[in-house]
């Protein structure tokens, strides 16, 4: 059986590697076709990506992406497509920032309060889609897309001077009231730039995700629903409740996405708070195959690509190439995973069939000789 496993690991690694190689090939072709020299571009990206400040940047970026990947992955493990992570984290970060700006408590109270607010808001927003799905049969894909748009409108309405918005002194930027010093999360004093302390929370979230899914009854039930809703139902899982619960958890996790930025970086929610990370999360969850370690690697890869292409612009390339690389990676990776999955399944069936046939032959022979 051990050998079996080793081959499975190999197969598991084959897919993402294939995809990344394919992506770089395609990108090289695109670069070459548009009259740029591809290999020095990759050289620049790589050299730059391994510099110490780049590493800090990548880790900080990856912290956010990792949380996004986890939030999406929870849904995916359930076969739920939470396209709404995007709206959930924005709404969550917005309310958390508004609350954080309004209060001045000691840090040990205020920071958890902000984080919990974000998680609750994210969970509630995702929960709407969950409830609509189980009670009214509305596809979560459509519901979460609508909710994303509605979240944008709500934030737009509330983020106005006179409501929850706060106009800066130059009169050009509205944001929530900036968080007081006490509400800022700690940094690791790395050089030259600090690594965000929220990394710790992300790591903990990853461990919790792994442990819950693979070591607890709840996680087993959740995965069961993801693999076969009908079998889960028959096995005693309350599928409807599980749908709502996992949407809530996914939303709560989504609530964390905006926190590294809010608590370690911007300290306020304004019009330029990052958008679209929910969709990045989808890409990263796909890349990491919903596995906590895989998602981490995916998040780091994304951070690396963004860092590296930032340098490309410095060297006269168009940094928009990063979109091409990322897009190709995602498309290749989903295809590669599927091909490998199917191949693995077929191969295993065949192996099992052959082994059993061999056993049967052996026993037949023995009977004959007996």
């Amino acid at each position: 059986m051990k050998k079996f496993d080793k081959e499975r690991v190999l197969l598991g690694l084959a897919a993402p590697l294939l995809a990344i190689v394919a992506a770089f090939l395609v990108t090289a072709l695109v670069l070459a076709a548009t009259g740029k020299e591809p290999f020095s571009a990759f050289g620049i990206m790589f050299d730059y990506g391994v510099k110490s400040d780049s590493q800090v940047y990548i880790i900080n970026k990856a912290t956010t992406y990792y949380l996004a990947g986890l939030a999406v992955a929870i849904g995916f493990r359930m076969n739920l497509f939470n396209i709404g992570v995007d709206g959930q984290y924005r709404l969550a970060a917005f309310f958390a920032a508004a609350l954080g700006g309004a209060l001045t408590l000691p840090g040990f109270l205020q920071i958890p309060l902000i984080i919990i607010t974000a998680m609750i808001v994210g969970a509630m927003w995702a929960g709407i889609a969950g409830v609509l799905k189980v009670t009214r049969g509305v596809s979560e894909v459509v519901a979460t897309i609508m909710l994303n748009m509605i979240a944008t409108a709500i934030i737009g309405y509330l983020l106005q001077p006179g409501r929850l918005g706060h106009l800066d002194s130059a009169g050009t930027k509205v944001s929530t009231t900036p968080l007081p010093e006490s509400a800022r999360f700690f940094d690791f004093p790395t050089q030259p730039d600090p690594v965000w302390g929220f990394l710790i929370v992300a790591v903990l979230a990853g461990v919790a995700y792994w442990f819950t899914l693979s070591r607890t009854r709840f996680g087993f039930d959740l995965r069961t629903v993801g693999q076969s809703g009908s079998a889960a139902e028959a096995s005693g899982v309350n599928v409807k409740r599980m749908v709502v619960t996992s949407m809530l958890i996914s939303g709560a996790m989504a609530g964390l996405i905006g926190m590294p930025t809010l608590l370690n970086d911007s300290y306020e929610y304004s019009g330029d708070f990052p958008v679209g990370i929910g969709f990045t999360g989808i890409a990263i969850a796909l890349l990491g195959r919903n596995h906590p370690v895989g998602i981490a690697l995916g998040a780091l890869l994304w951070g690396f690509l963004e860092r590296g292409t930032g340098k490309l612009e410095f060297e006269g390339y168009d940094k928009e190439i990063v979109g091409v690389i990322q897009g190709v990676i995602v498309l290749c990776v989903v295809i590669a995973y599927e091909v490998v999955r199917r191949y693995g399944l077929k191969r295993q069936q065949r192996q099992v069939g052959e082994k059993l046939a061999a056993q049967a032959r052996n026993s037949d022979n023995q009977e004959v000789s007996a």
Partner: protein
Amino acid sequence: GQSSTEAGGSDEGKLKVGMAYDVGGRGDNSFNDSAARGLDKAKGEYKAETKELTAKSGETPADREQRLASLAEGGYNPVVGVGFAYKDAIDKVSAKYPKTTFGLIDSASEQKNVASIVFTEEQGSYLAGVAAALKSKDGKVGFIGGVDLPLIKKFAAGFRKGALDTNPKADVTVQYLSTGTDLSGFGAPDKGRAAAKGMLDKGVDVIFAAAGGSGAGAIEAVAAKPGTWAIGVDSDQAKDPALAKYSNSIMTSVVKNVDSGVFDLITSVKDGKPKTGTNSYSLAEDGVSLTTTGDHLKDIQAKLDEAKKKIVDGSIKVPTTL
């Protein structure tokens, strides 16, 4: 490991200017382009070495910090952040590079080594309002804002005040194309067109569109209805090749002369007396103005000059919010 920028080291003596554009970057026929013109001028006159980087949509404050830091670290001085989105990033990065002068367009920073360059958009818009009210047949004028951001609201406020001061019976319709954090209103000409048509259908005959890329749609709609006027924004839109077909319908454009702000800053650094604090480019120093391409303002120029004088001497205070 090694830091990416350690090799940098600033070679004193040579003027190196770093520009960090907002989304859109050089070539946007608008705000960023205006800043780029200032840079180009410095390049021509001072033989400055330049480096231009551009923001992309959906980035985080950290991305902007990284961009500014890499320029500062690369020995570029001054480093200019184009757009108020750079405010927080400049606050942070300027503290790390005290010897570098930073320029911040459209926002104000308290840091010692930051020169904030702000414009009184409302004053330019006020003049546009005056022009609109004068040119309109029955005082129905419209304002189309891309997104209801404070910056755009400044335009709206000035425009409305100008129109009402000129014609107390004027009817000013204000319409935004998207709201809040949804910035799609800056890049949706179809929405601009629909909004403009809505106004035109109601008898509005002068429309001021401060809506980025969406403005093209509004101008197109106006051009399709004879006897109506559009007012452009940010750059002289009558000269925009993309709008060449409609240039006869563009009465004027409210421009912010970001280029002079940028050029002045570069000059001050070159002269060894870097600007700091808030540098307001108002109507008085032609920081904002109306363009006259096509000479459509000839008949009302006197009244405009009068309004300008009043603003400059302070007898008219233009509001910045509606």
